[in-house]
């Protein structure tokens, strides 16, 4: 099946710093989503981005489908950005099953 690799596995930032999280996938995909899992376990949708670039406030994401990677940018990080960031992809022939990476643990210190 498709493999999803995220890097770095964990990251510690000072409040106000910027960061880039990477997601590599091993095959073509129909769908790619980025999620933030907060300390209470809730998975929050950040982006639905099978290709192209999107921005939402301090967050932006870029997916280059032909090169099989996606990037999530966090600018001016805040302590509330702490948590686990997951990338998940869908291969069309498997229904709409999301295959998740292992996640990046982000800690933002004040």
């Amino acid at each position, binding site marked *: 099946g498709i493999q999803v690799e995220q890097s770095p596995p964990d990251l510690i930032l000072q409040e106000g710093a910027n960061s880039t999280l990477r997601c590599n996938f091993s095959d073509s995909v129909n769908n790619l989503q980025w999620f933030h899992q907060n300390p209470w376990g809730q998975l929050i949708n950040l982006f639905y981005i099978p290709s192209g670039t999107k921005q939402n406030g301090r967050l932006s994401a870029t997916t280059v489908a032909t090169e099989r990677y996606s990037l999530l940018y966090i600018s001016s990080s805040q302590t509330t950005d702490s948590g686990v960031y997951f990338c998940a992809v869908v291969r069309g022939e498997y229904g*709409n099953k999301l295959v998740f990476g292992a996640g990046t643990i982000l800690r933002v210190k004040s």
Partner: protein
Amino acid sequence: EAGVAQSPRYKIIEKRQSVAFWCNPISGHATLYWYQQILGQGPKLLIQFQNNGVVDDSQLPKDRFSAERLKGVDSTLKIQPAKLEDSAVYLCASSSGVTTQYFGPGTRLLVL
């Protein structure tokens, strides 16, 4: 718009007991998913429903897990009998077709 609802939020049981989880998807979403998230890992799909039909249950341990979505809306996931390795968060998600999936708050299960 109300999000995906799940209950209970927490459950502690002893091994070999049975347990059931409930999910109510976002109104109008025909597709419903159950994922299992073991501590330190990303969620893994257990079963996907399209209305009340099963689309994918290839990773559901069918000897102990069962799920149903009788009227194409609410769904229940059951484990009988539970094992220690079933300790995890069980996440329900829904979507309108092959688009963005929205997740509920999850049920944290601890099997002792």
